């Protein structure tokens, strides 16, 4: 009995003590992000630099891996316990009801004039800017030059050249491919980029699927052409490695000549390929005809959102403003953070990175990808083609509507016609469902 009483008293006192200490110091900023430990180490280095420059502030970093981050953030948001500053994907502004939960960055002292005029438009709802863009990204090809060199094939710029290269590579060794294995997500982008080049339409326009049954079937037919010419593997059943970078056919056997990925994510493939710096080249998006610049989708890659509670305290608000400013414009910090989160479009950030001679960021694959994405996207705008990724295109539930039929097609269990009609039958209705919450 006595023991129980003692324990109860102990518990009660702890409750009281911790309850009182609930208020964290307003000069402490909490900041959460996801990524690899590479990113974490560099972010912590930048944080150390920040704390050195601003000894009156402290930053508590909270870093986790990608899987589980979204769920964790969602839970925290619903409890009002999110970090002061937290990393988000562009489309979460919509799917996580940013207009209700995230701070309108117009309330902070941020100089948006240093960003391109339209950069933050996709992050705006009701004229509130709900995320601070870190970089933009596009889905492009990177090739393993040595695979092409061995077969005497040159780096292609058009689809036809790609197909020719495929044939040359396959002639040398039927196990080798100009690209290799693409999963449903990647094939979707490939198809939609291809179709956008032909039709001039964005896959989603006015919240509806813009491609017709015929056009989709045309897209599938094109995939088959790629599969018949050693560009892509004939069936995804013969290679069941779901993770691209660790696939032995990419990193060890080098049977796969290329990847299709966000230009901000290329480091994953670089890390596993031996001597990647000598082999990997940026190949952009292949075109219908030489010298065209079409089929380039882009989006904000990731952004920093800020908690609404930040404006409730003047100290905290100043701290967060100083922190965001520092991470974007302090030369040391910017160099330490590098292009891991992509190439920022902020004029100051970008010029620091461009002028850094020791690291030569401009030569990184991310940067080269960034340049081509921006160039092509802008060229398209001049022809009134806007291929900005729709905010719900990558919604977890919705994306299955187009990825599932494509996956079945890649495994050979449905025909092009069936896949196309499956996509069409539910695309519009499901999209409307997720948009309306």
């Amino acid at each position, binding site marked *: 009995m006595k023991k129980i009483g003692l324990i109860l008293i102990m518990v009660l006192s702890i409750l009281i003590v911790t309850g009182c200490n609930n208020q964290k110091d307003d000069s402490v900023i909490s900041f959460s992000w996801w990524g690899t430990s590479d990113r974490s180490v560099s972010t912590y280095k930048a944080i150390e630099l920040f704390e050195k420059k601003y000894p009156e502030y402290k930053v508590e970093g909270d870093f986790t891996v990608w899987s589980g981050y979204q*769920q964790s953030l969602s839970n925290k948001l619903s409890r009002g316990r999110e970090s002061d500053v937290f990393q988000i994907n562009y489309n979460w502004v919509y799917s996580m009801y940013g207009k209700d939960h995230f701070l309108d960055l117009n309330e902070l002292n941020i100089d948006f004039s240093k960003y391109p005029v339209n950069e933050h438009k996709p992050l705006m709802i009701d004229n509130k800017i709900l995320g601070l863009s870190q970089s933009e990204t596009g889905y492009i090809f990177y090739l393993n030059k040595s695979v092409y060199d061995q077969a005497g094939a040159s780096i292609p710029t058009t689809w036809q050249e790609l197909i020719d290269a495929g044939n040359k590579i396959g002639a040398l060794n039927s196990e080798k491919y100009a690209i290799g294995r693409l999963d449903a997500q990647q094939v979707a982008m490939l198809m939609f980029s291809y179709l956008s080049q032909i039709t001039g339409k964005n896959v989603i326009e006015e919240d509806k699927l813009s491609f017709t049954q015929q056009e989709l079937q045309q897209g599938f037919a094109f995939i088959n052409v790629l599969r018949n010419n050693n560009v892509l593997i004939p069936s995804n*059943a013969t*290679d*069941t*490695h*779901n993770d691209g970078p660790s696939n032995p056919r990419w990193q060890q056997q080098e049977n796969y000549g290329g990847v299709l990925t966000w230009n901000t994510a290329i480091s994953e493939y670089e890390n596993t390929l031996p001597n990647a710096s000598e082999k990997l080249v940026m190949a952009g998006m292949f075109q219908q005809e030489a010298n065209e610049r079409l089929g380039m989708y882009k989006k904000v890659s990731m952004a920093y959102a800020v908690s609404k509670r930040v404006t409730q305290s003047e100290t905290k608000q100043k701290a967060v403003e100083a922190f965001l400013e520092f991470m974007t414009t302090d030369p040391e910090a910017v160099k330490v953070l590098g292009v891991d989160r992509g190439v920022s479009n902020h004029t100051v950030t970008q010029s620091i990175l461009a002028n850094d001679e020791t690291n030569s960021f401009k030569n990184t694959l991310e940067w080269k990808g960034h340049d081509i994405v921006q160039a092509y996207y802008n060229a398209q705008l001049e022809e009134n083609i806007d291929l900005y990724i729709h905010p719900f295109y990558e919604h977890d539930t919705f994306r299955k509507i187009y990825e599932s039929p494509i996956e079945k097609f890649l495994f050979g269990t449905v025909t092009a016609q069936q896949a196309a009609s499956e996509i069409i039958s539910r695309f519009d209705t499901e999209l409307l469902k997720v948009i309306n919450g």
Partner: protein
Amino acid sequence: MVGQKKWLPYVLLIPWFIGFLVFKLYPFFNSLYMSLFKRIQGQVKYVGLQNYVDLFDKNSTWGGLFMNGLKVTATYVLVTVPLILIVSLLVAYVLSRKIKGVGFFRTAYYIPTVLGANVAVVILWRYIFEYEGLINQGLSLFGISPVSWLGTAFGAMISIVLLRVWQFGSTMLIFLNALKNVPETLYEAATIDGASKTSQFFRITLPMITPIILFNGVMRLVETFQVFNGPQLITQGGPLDSTRVLNMVIYQVAFSGGQDLYTGSAMSWVLFIIIMVFTIGIFKSSKYWVYYQD
């Protein structure tokens, strides 16, 4: 029992009772309550049994995936549970009959369970089943062309079933304990009467441990209906959702992508009812084949 204070059992059960109220009863009804609601256009609205109806509607957001999950999970359970019981009982039996180095074997057979869903196990398992993996390498030695294990529904199912059966350690340990409790005297008497080892197994061992067979059977059934780690890590529910078990669907709906706790609760409830039905069935049948000491 002799001179037992009347209030003692009740007092001793207080912790359990608190646990039941707070950790079981409250969430139980809370989740049932939640399953009657739905978020429509940002507002949470009462929808009665609509969530449940939607689960069986192929054209609703989650209906197709849910029904597929039912099929996948049922297949997995019906194959895995008997396999685990048989394998672990046989091994436990062999180990219980005076083997030298019982400690070593017991440890060795238990290591897989200890490793659990360790990242290295996942990597290794995929390595075994991948297209250029170990099994196909072995097949090619016999001139058999490679099978796409992880690329077909059948092969992928086999890979996760085998993963679970490979981890038969806990079930085996429990059987070992049960086998130890079978009095040696019974075997001695039977041997004197001239009964063979096999007949002793079927006529002495099996009947004596039926309570534990029941226990293990029910536990494995309940547990395998909720399998998650294997399919999640090894096959990611693929290919083409052929190994996307119910628990993965619930996780996807409630926690990751979907963020829909209401449908998630409804799914949990359907799963619960299914498990209940199976278990009640087994318990009812136990009257005919389980033999208790007391």
